[in-house]
């Protein structure tokens, strides 16, 4: 029973549960009572879900293992295609895999298709990073036979993206990049990637139409080349285009045949294995769907969800690995929802059947394992991979984009209660109340998502980047409304054309807290890598002014950000030569029209990069300025000496630094300097870099699990933090537990950062009793409107009590449905290592005082 009350506007507000039945549920097990799968089938599917989550780098469920088929089949094709154009080889690799791989269909499922030869397996990618695959060979997850896998890795080592890129770097720079100390390791060494597949062309056109289009382009090209008079400049340009179109045809034909293999499998299972007439009929229905799509356009929602799933597998796991689940899911599926719910539909469904279908889609994603390197399993503790779909926002004409499909997705999400896929909701003042209520229901049930992005800011960002389009064909004002989150935070276009295809655009990270640490020590990382990590910029003990430290940091940041962006662009240059994606290219209207591979064609720049641990660095600078340079309470020598011994024997001094003003309290003493830090250094210096796509690189500050991983690698810092403690958990989030002036003070601080960056992650933890009371929705809604008016880009919420998290630490076996927001993703609390769990418990749980409610001007 909660007895919290607040006096506000002449009333006494009590925060008892809106649903009186909740009063009977012990507050330390609330989340175990919230799931409500809509059918017996989805309840069964959830209870037998083959989760692929990792924790501490290890898979949580037993029996999870890497498969060998993808490695084996792409290698066979690579060896057999020597001498052919590289893009054709890539198409043949995909084709050989799709033709010969083992297919999987599971009991009870309606959406079929898997990316490995057994539902407990996941594929590996030796053509990307040999280091990432070698890592698997040393573990129990190694593909079998292990000797064959080792031979395959040895074969790929000289051909891999990693080997192709490494030769362009000074070994000193390379070694610094591989430390994951001041920056995320280069993409060519990790294989980590992201993409926004143009799902729309598959659903709307079907692949047979795309094949026809490519074939007609080849005919046109041949006609042009045969025309008189011959002109070499113009004529030779057709050669690469013809290769690309031919590769698209090979890839799309292989995909159609692969989908139809699924149709045959379902028919055989129905006729030879299944005895239940209802399930037999359903398997024959699935067979009919897989026979028609993705070859043909979709006629209803069942078609659309299956076609979307096949496309996801191909773009994210089979042709190449890419993290993410980027799509404007409600807009994408809305025409098919309408078709299926219309009178006389060829594929009729009810709204509740749509909800069930989306619950099944969410469980498919939960089973989708990613063959990431150990480092990337460690930096997403409790997660499988980053799967994030986007909803809401506005249409191209500015009208509200929320629809009944949006509501079905949100209802399914609340009911089935899985950590993945996460959702982003684009918040607009035009968003309809009915949908906002569903968004709120998911948030207050503690899912940690939808995370909220500002609709207008995202649209403006698309238009801003369009200005730099190298082809002069960036997003139009109408297209700019059709954006999604590519992964956790960076926005990017969705749709038939101009989407992001590789992670030389949004993504990869730089770590300001470690950069501050080395700025105090002449560029040397004494606490982790034990090596020179950047230029020699002097020792802080010799700095006479705060500006000298500021400029030393600037130089370290300049060196590291330039190296990080160079790594991304060198990767891109080699992806263009050796990692073509003919299937994805066939889906993009631009690649199809121009005969250019998806890695190469860039019409819309999207050059984001992630500063992670900015607030530890910012708070540290505030403390140094105040205590060393302004008040002169301590000398720099005293500070450096204390840091070198992790503050041991200097506890009083540590408390002084810890109690210095902190970000997130609307305190000018902290905020003025930190705003300058964000705008002049973090955004200002980053945006001086121009990437492959021709645009400036802009900060998209976030954290993923790196705030823990990098925190553990960062020594003691002048904000009073001990060496190895976690860093700040979001791009612009206050450091855990230091935002003590209430939720609206946090908003006022964050709103001060406006120049050159509007994509920073803000984590907030809200009071469970307030959110679950009858006032919860009105307070949250007023908070969101205020957030929107303050022009803040992002916010996401944990609504979970300390009591329940501590109960889960004591008895994890009783808390499998407790989900928390870690940073750009959510996870089951019990799957997160204790170190990470404690960072979530330590976050400030925000109540709403009368002053907060007045600031929000909430009508209660």
């Amino acid at each position: 029973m909660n007895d919290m009350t607040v006096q506000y506007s002449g009333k006494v507000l009590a925060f008892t549960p809106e649903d009186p039945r909740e009063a009977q549920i012990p507050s330390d097990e609330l989340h175990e009572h919230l799931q409500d799968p809509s059918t017996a089938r989805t309840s069964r599917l959830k209870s037998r879900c083959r989760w692929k989550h990792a924790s501490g780098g290890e898979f949580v469920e037993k029996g999870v293992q890497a498969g060998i088929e993808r490695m084996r089949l792409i290698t066979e094709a690579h060896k057999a295609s020597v001498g052919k154009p590289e893009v054709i080889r890539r198409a043949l690799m995909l084709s050989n895999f799709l033709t010969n791989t083992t297919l999987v269909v599971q009991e009870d499922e309606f959406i079929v298709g898997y990316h490995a030869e057994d539902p407990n397996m996941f594929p590996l990618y030796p053509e990307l990073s040999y280091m990432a695959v070698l890592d698997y060979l040393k573990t129990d997850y190694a593909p079998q036979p292990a000797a064959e896998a080792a031979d395959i890795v040895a074969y790929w080592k000289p051909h891999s993206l990693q080997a192709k890129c490494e030769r362009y770097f000074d070994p000193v720079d390379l070694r610094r990049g591989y430390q994951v100390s001041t920056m995320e390791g280069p993409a060519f060494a990790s294989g980590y990637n992201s993409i926004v597949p143009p799902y729309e062309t598959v659903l709307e056109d079907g692949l047979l139409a795309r094949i026809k289009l490519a074939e007609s382009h080849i005919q046109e090209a041949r006609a042009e080349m045969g025309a008189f008079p011959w002109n070499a400049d113009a004529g030779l340009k057709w050669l690469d285009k013809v290769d690309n179109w031919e590769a698209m045809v090979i890839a799309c034909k292989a995909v159609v045949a692969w989908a139809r293999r699924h149709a045959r499998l379902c028919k055989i299972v129905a006729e030879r294995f299944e005895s239940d007439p209802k399930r037999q009929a359903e398997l024959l229905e699935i067979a009919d769907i897989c026979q028609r799509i993705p070859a043909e356009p979709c006629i209803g929602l069942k078609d659309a969800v299956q076609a979307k799933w096949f496309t996801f597998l191909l773009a994210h796991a089979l042709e190449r690995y890419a993290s993410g689940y980027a799509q404007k899911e409600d807009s994408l599926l809305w025409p098919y929802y309408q078709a299926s719910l219309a009178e006389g539909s060829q594929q009729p469904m009810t709204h509740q059947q749509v909800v069930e279908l989306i619950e099944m889609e969410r469980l498919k994603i939960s089973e989708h394992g990613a063959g990431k390197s150990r480092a990337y399993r460690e930096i997403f503790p409790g997660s499988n991979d980053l799967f994030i779909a986007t909803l809401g926002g506005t249409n191209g004409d500015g009208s509200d984009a929320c629809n009944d499909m949006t509501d079905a997705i949100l209802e399914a999400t609340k009911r089935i209660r899985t950590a993945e896929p996460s959702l982003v909701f684009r918040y607009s003042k035009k968003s309809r109340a009915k949908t906002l209520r569903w968004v709120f229901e998911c948030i207050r049930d503690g899912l940690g998502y939808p995370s909220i992005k500002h609709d207008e800011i995202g649209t403006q960002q698309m238009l801003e980047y369009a200005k730099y389009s190298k082809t002069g064909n960036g997003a139009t004002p109408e297209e700019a409304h059709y954006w999604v989150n590519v992964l956790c935070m960076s926005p990017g276009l969705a749709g038939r054309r101009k989407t992001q295809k590789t992670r030389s655009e949004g993504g990869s990270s730089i770590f300001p807290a470690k950069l501050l640490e080395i700025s105090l020590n002449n560029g040397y990382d004494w606490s982790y890598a034990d090596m020179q990590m950047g230029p020699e910029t002097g020792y802080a003990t010799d700095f006479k002014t705060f500006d000298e430290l500021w400029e030393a940091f600037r130089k370290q940041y300049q060196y590291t950000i330039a190296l990080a962006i160079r790594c991304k662009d060198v990767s891109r240059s080699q992806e263009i030569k050796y990692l073509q994606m003919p299937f994805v290219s066939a889906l993009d209207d631009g690649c199809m029209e121009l005969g250019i591979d998806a890695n190469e064609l860039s019409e819309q720049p999207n050059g984001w990069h992630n500063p992670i641990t900015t607030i530890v660095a910012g708070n540290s600078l505030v403390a140094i300025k105040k205590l060393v340079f302004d008040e002169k309470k301590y000398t720099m020598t005293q500070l450096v000496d204390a840091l070198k011994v992790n503050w041991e024997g200097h506890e009083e001094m540590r408390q002084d630094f810890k109690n210095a003003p902190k970000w997130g309290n609307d305190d000018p003493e902290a905020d003025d300097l930190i705003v300058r830090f964000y705008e002049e250094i973090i955004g200002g210096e980053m945006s001086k870099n121009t990437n492959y796509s021709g645009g400036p690189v802009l900060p998209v500050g976030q954290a993923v699990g790196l705030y823990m991983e990098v925190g553990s690698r960062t020594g003691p810092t002048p904000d009073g933090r001990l060496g190895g403690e976690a860093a700040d958990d979001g791009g612009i989030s206050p450091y855990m537990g230091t935002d003590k002036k209430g939720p609206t003070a946090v908003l006022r601080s964050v709103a001060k950062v406006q120049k050159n960056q509007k994509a920073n992650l803000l984590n907030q933890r809200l009071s469970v009793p307030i959110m679950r009371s009858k006032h919860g929705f009105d307070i949250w809604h007023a908070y969101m409107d205020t957030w929107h008016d303050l022009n803040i880009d992002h916010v996401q919420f944990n609504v979970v009590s300390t009591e329940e998290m501590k109960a889960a630490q004591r008895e994890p076996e009783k808390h499998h449905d407790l989900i928390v927001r870690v940073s750009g993703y959510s996870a089951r609390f019990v799957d997160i290592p204790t170190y990470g769990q404690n960072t979530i418990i330590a976050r400030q749980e925000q109540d709403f005082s009368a002053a907060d409610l007045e600031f929000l001007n909430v009508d209660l």
Partner: protein
Amino acid sequence: MATCNQCEFFNPIPSDADDYAAGKGDCVTEKRDEKGKYWLSRPVDEHASTCSNFHKQ
């Protein structure tokens, strides 16, 4: 020696299928583990020597 086309799990690929080839078939088997049942399909040649799953028609 027994061959795949003598096995219960061998299903010849229809001649109008995109991936049709003479003698090629789908080997469809049922598996079960603690999470439930599932079915696998892998392409085989009718003349291939049999595997440990062989089950005479």
